[in-house]
């Protein structure tokens, strides 16, 4: 079971990205000791992403290990001065897709729904919140893949539009369009639920 900790929370934001990219630059240039820094900067973010996508801790760790080893194997290809986060997410995403294809479990995973949040006192507020999150997750899962992935990478993983464009191999404009459409679909879906509840 993975450790749940708020004390070892990953560094987030631009600084963490810059640190990771600087460390990766050093690692690509031959400084072997920098890989530990690359791991520390990337692993928590990648693990969170993989865990949310796979909903299996063991599988997420396996994919994380493969992602980092691919980063290691391809370190010489890291472009000087480039950002490492989009590259790392793109490798993780590719490995995850390959893994889904191999095991032919994508449909099953979609049906399984989200992981159960940690048990908590069943107050009305928490139950309501849980229900809202569940509804949002349901609506997100109904989005076309291109929109869903763009939404998850920006909203959940905190990647910038430029980084998401890089991960998906498209343009910033295309990502903006996908996000706009995704938000419109979510608004419509959640609005319909509210109306249905009211009736």
């Amino acid at each position: 079971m993975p450790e749940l900790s708020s004390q070892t929370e990953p560094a987030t934001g631009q600084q963490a990205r810059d640190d990771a990219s600087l460390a990766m630059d050093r690692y690509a240039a031959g400084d072997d000791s920098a890989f530990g820094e690359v791991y520390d900067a990337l692993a928590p973010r990648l693990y969170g992403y993989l865990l949310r996508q796979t909903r299996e801790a063991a599988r997420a760790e396996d994919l994380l290990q493969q992602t980092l080893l691919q980063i290691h194997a391809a370190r010489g290809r890291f472009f000087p001065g480039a950002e490492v986060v989009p590259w790392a997410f793109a490798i993780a995403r590719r490995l995850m897709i390959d893994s889904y294809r191999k095991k032919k479990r994508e449909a099953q995973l979609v049906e399984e729904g989200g992981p159960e949040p940690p048990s908590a006192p069943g107050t009305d507020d928490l139950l309501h919140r849980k229900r809202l999150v569940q509804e949002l997750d349901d609506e997100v899962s109904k989005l076309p893949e291109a929109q869903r992935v763009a939404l998850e990478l920006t909203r959940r993983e905190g990647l910038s539009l430029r980084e998401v464009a890089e991960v998906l191999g498209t343009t910033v404009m295309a990502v903006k369009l996908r996000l706009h459409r995704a938000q419109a679909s979510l608004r419509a879906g959640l609005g319909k639920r509210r109306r249905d509840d009211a009736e």
Partner: protein
Amino acid sequence: MPSEPTPVPRPELRAKVLELARRTPAPVRAQVTKRTRGLVTAGLLLPIALFLLLGGAEQGPRPRLLLLLTFAGTFAIAALSLWAALSRGGRTLGRARAWLVVVALLPPLLLLVWKVGFSAAFPNMTQAWAARPGLRCFGVSLLFGVVPLIAFLSARRGSDPVHPRALGAALGAAGGLWAATLVDLWCPVGFPWHVLLGHVLPALLLATLGALAGARLLTPPSPP
């Protein structure tokens, strides 16, 4: 309200990954750059060597000015295409899919317009040649073009987790256009169907071949 705990991987995983990386050394940037430059250079020079072995440039009935104009244009299109396909735009993942698709499709068509357009400006230069329908140019273009394609695919092998097909197509077209530049040096025919069959179609075929091969060769290897 306390912030939600962030899931983190087991601490043992860090030691395991670092140990696995230590046990399997990976080439550093300088080594990869050297290898890539070597492969790209070989991919560009080998067709020139083949071209010279097969007889080299031939003016034929073309005016010298037409030869220079078509060669300069074809070379410029090929050079632009090579730069657009091989450069990564400052990003490890390379350029966007749309860019690569344009690189695969647009330059071959530009080549057609350039060659036929300038040939049309000279008398009798766009007439059909019964003895040269374009099959020889087609074969030679494919032969010259497949060499750089193999070299480019080798240079970028396992490097594209995002759009390997599009990258493969762009590399294929670039290889095909490099071949077209050489073929243009000895082919005086400006008949549109000849140019299409013998000079442009091979570049598009190599783009297709590059896309098919790219899907297998350019994607990072999946673990067993």
